[in-house]
């Protein structure tokens, strides 16, 4: 049954973000802030970079603020004013990605000013931006959220999000797929990957796809076919899931932006599940020295090795 999700705090959150942004910009604590602003289409939001205190009024937080802005601090960071600190508006899920990036030396905590957002959830990519947030219209990732309130930020509006108790969509789907035979799973993914057109939106929005030279763009050697044919598509998505294993924090941006609706986050969540089971690793707010695949213990499972 569809139930509305309480987003009443978002107004107060928006106000608090604006006040804080205005303050830190005018005090010169940061040179720019990456946040969300309203866009043309009704109810929609888009990323914005502001550097003037007056522009703080443009910032918003609504259920349409789906983007993980962390991506702007890695690949796109060169194009954002580089002097001084950069402020960024982050939801809990986004913050996990930032923690990961710090662990991988892509960011320094002291270079950024974190404006954390108490978040009850954002909209799914399948609905129009003006839709009301409900148990149906909520983004699938939000059904498994354990980070409604980010911690360790420089500023978090004093609001407590009301987290709805939702059926965990990915967990349920992973369980369903796991129960299939390998041939059935292959058929499922084959159909999904066949739609892929290699637009690389998944890669481009991913905070962790920060390689300057993507393995899959190379042709000497050509490890993965670059053409958008089923063989190359499958290889691309397998390689990407492997590269994200132990790093992906579940912002689900890849899945959200896929124009072909490929459930990419399923792969990432499956990997996260395995890493939790195998090595008790979970991506969280803590900055880790080493990811689970950059370390080992002598007692690691080897039941699969003859």
């Amino acid at each position, binding site marked *: 049954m569809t139930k509305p999700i309480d987003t009443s705090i978002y107004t107060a959150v928006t106000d608090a973000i604006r006040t804080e942004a205005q303050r830190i910009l005018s005090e010169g604590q940061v040179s720019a802030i990456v946040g969300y602003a309203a866009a043309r289409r009704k109810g929609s939001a888009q990323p914005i970079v502001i550097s003037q205190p007056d522009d703080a009024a443009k910032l918003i937080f609504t259920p349409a603020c789906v983007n993980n802005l962390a991506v702007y601090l890695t690949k796109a960071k060169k194009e954002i004013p580089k002097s001084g600190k950069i402020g960024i508006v982050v939801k809990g899920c986004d913050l996990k990605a930032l923690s990961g990036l710090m662990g991988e030396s892509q960011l320094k905590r002291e270079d950024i000013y974190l404006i954390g957002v108490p978040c009850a959830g954002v909209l799914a990519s399948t609905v129009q931006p003006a839709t009301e947030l409900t148990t149906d219209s909520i983004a699938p990732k939000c059904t498994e959220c354990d980070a409604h309130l980010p911690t360790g930020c420089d500023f978090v509006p004093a609001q407590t999000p009301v987290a709805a108790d939702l059926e965990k969509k990915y967990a349920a789907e992973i369980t369903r*797929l*796991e129960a299939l035979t*390998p*041939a*059935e*799973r*292959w*058929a*499922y*993914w*084959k159909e999904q990957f*066949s739609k892929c*057109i290699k637009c690389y939106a998944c890669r481009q929005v991913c905070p962790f796809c920060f390689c300057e030279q993507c*393995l899959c763009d190379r042709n000497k050697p050509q*490890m*993965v076919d670059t053409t*958008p*044919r*089923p*063989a190359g598509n*499958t*290889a691309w*998505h*397998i*390689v990407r*899931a*492997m590269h994200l*294993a*132990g790093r992906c924090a579940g912002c689900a941006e890849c899945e959200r932006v896929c124009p072909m609706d490929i459930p990419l986050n399923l*792969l990432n969540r*499956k*990997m996260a599940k*395995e*890493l939790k089971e*195998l*090595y008790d690793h979970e991506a969280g707010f803590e900055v880790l020295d080493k990811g*689970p*695949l*950059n*370390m*080992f*213990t*002598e007692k*690691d*499972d*080897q039941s*699969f*090795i*003859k």
Partner: protein
Amino acid sequence: MHSEKQKHTFEPKIIAFVCTWCTYAGADLAGTSRMQYPSNVRVLKFPCTGRIDPVFILKAFQQGADGVLVSGCHPGDCHYIAGNFHARRRFAVFRKLLEFVGVDLNRLQFSWVSAAEGGKWVEVVTDLTEKVRAMGPMTEFKELAMEEQWSGAIDTPELKEAYNQI
């Protein structure tokens, strides 16, 4: 042990990624001991299992391997201190991924074979070959390689025939 007289309708292609210090040496020992095993395996030598990228396994399947073997030093025996420990984690995770996208893990074998275990090398290679032989060819990746996005497909009879022959 593999009998030369036995005729098989299907000869699987097995690709083995092995480290030079333990498993490659173990395979050498099998040779110097004149042990016999199926000729289906092709060995690629690496300094260490730590060097083996999961992409190689994927690539091997894409290039038509019906079975893949990855083998290195027993835990604690790595010539490079810990390369096999890193590999162990990497492959523990990668095989789960392959399984999730629908690869039958019976086609992917991992083993520790030391330089002294010529017999184990023979056993591992024979077992995998026979297991894969019983499963039949790995058609999934070969089919994929033949397939096109619909809009690029030229639906000619000769192409359809080639596809059906996999």
